[in-house]
């Protein structure tokens, strides 16, 4: 188990290192440089431009050698300093993202967990009964083949415009200011429901299909036939099949996180939901590099953290990784 976690942690560190390096490269790869972009907005005399440019280049450390800039970036990062947002000047990026983060967590965590549990549960049942299989499977294939944002658009159109039950834009009603009251919480929930539903439904389809197919594989495996031949009750065989089928589903969850995050970004854009995805869109449109860097970093951190949690869960569920026999290779 030590070996398993040792390798995992090494991979996470390498990934984080690589991700931060890519992050550092973002503004340096962009055509033009941020100081130029900023100064081009002000109309200045030629001489004044030179001097102000030098001043800002010095301020941001752009006149230092490249390796020094890179080290400074790490130093600032470890202090939690991600710079000042241009889009929402003069708020620091860390603060802007911290304001958006709760919306993301509130949207993603329930959508991922509930869809995973519900999908596996229904999928396992679908493998059990012909009737359920004929209803859930086609539905599951349709849902999992749907792009997140399109389902979002459809839900917004049907429930927001045609039936006019749910609001289709923002994180809470524009008539309210964030405060702790039932009205505000109700408004939050009403705005949360449709983005949540579109993420939940698409993932639900995917997990249900995956589980159904896995169970059918497991029921055809030798150990199942052996158990049946021994005269074990069907229920017991199913139970063993379920426990074996759940393992690839846990790995699948880890593999799928990147796709879910991308889907959440697109869904937030459909509903103008004030999470990091919506923020990122604004940052890209306004060429706010500090904010882009910050969003990128938080997305990576979130995905890495979620991966780590899944790894721990995997060890808890699969005894083979604990005894070091085999199991998922790192």
């Amino acid at each position, binding site marked *: 188990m030590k070996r398993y976690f040792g390798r995992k942690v090494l*991979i*996470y560190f*390498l*990934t984080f290192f*690589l*991700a931060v390096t*890519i992050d550092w*490269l*973002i503004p340096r*790869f*962009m*055509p033009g440089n941020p100081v130029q972009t900023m100064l081009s907005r002000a109309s200045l005399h030629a001489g004044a431009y030179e001097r102000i440019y030098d001043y800002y280049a010095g301020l941001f450390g752009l006149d230092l050698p490249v390796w020094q800039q890179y080290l400074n970036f790490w130093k600032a990062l470890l202090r939690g300093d991600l710079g000042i947002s241009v889009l929402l000047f003069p708020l620091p990026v860390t603060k802007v993202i911290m304001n958006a983060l709760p919306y993301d967590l509130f949207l993603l965590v329930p959508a991922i967990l509930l869809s995973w549990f519900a999908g596996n549960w229904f999928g396992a049942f679908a493998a059990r009964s012909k009737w359920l299989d004929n209803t859930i499977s086609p539905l599951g*294939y*349709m849902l*999992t*083949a*749907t*792009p*997140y*944002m*399109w*389902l979002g*658009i*459809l839900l*917004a*159109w049907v429930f*927001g*415009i*045609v039936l006019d039950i749910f609001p*289709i834009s923002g994180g809470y009603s524009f008539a309210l200011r964030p405060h702790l009251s039932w009205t505000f919480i109700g408004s939050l929930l009403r705005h949360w429901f449709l983005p949540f539903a579109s993420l939940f439904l698409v993932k639900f389809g995917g997990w249900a*299909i995956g589980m159904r*197919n896995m169970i*059918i*594989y497991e029921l*055809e495996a030798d150990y199942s036939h052996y158990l049946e031949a021994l005269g074990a009750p069907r229920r017991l065989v199913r139970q063993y099949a379920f426990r074996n089928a759940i393992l690839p589903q846990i790995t699948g969850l880890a*593999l799928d996180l*990147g*796709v879910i*995050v*991308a*889907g959440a*970004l*697109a869904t937030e*854009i*459909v509903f103008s939901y004030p999470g990091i995805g919506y923020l*990122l*869109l604004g940052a*890209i449109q306004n060429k706010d590099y500090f904010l*882009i860097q910050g969003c*990128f970093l938080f*997305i*990576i951190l979130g*995905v*890495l953290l979620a*991966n780590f949690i899944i790894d721990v869960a995997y060890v808890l569920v699969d005894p083979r990784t604990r005894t070091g026999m085999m199991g998922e*290779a*790192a």
Partner: protein
Amino acid sequence: MTKPKKRNEILYFALKNNKLKLGLAVLLVFVVLTLVGPLLTDYAPYDYVGPPYQPPSAEYWFGTTTFGQDVFSQFILGLQATFLVGIVGGGLATLIGVLVGFSAGYRGGIVDEVLNMLTNIVLVIPTLAILLIIAAYLTVRGVLAESVFIGCTAWPWAARAIRAQTFSLRSRSFVDLARLSGMKPWKIIFTQIAPNMMSYLLLVFILQFGGAILTAATLDFIGLGPTNAVSLGLMMNNAVLWGALLLGIWWWFVPPGVAIMAIVGALYVTNVGLDEVFNPKLREM
């Protein structure tokens, strides 16, 4: 003697499999539509050809946009882009997955360690974030560039799966025999191991095909897709951007989504159908 018999057997089960027939039929409809479509429309996708906000009619089959562009022309070109992304992106991802998976699974040892590390890193980094940089760097992007990008980032799970399969085949006696007879490693991989995995590789390709289409739709919708072409994701992006929801222009955003759902769904169903055909254990179901 045995070979033709086996092929007939697979054909027999393929013709009996309803999932396979359904999936292929839906795909066929869209392929035909993509090929014949350009003949059915006389409008360029972004030309202002008619009055705005027209619901579907005999003149404009799928209606017109806020600007009076013909939705059907955009739809047909979007379908072409979709299939291109699927074939190039899915194909490239499968190819990289095959190369990495075979090398890691067959060589083992340090090659395996390094490739595994690489696979895991690419797996975890959200590809969307990398695309942001590329998108900012390349101001003009085409469907082909997008497909190549998707192919270069979607391969890790395929590599993992193929590695595991190669690993289990490597220790079979016929592979040992080939090795003893002095065959070169790559020859063993392509003449001994790969043929035994052909059906599996086909399934991987189909899944990558569908996955590439969905990824492309998401990227296009966020505005990171092609800048000089029409695609289904871009249609949805434009529809939302120009108020199709509030104006109730459903004919602008419903067709592209339905097409993606039908194509990708059909691919998945075909995949399961083929699995049942290739895998005798699943046939009895």
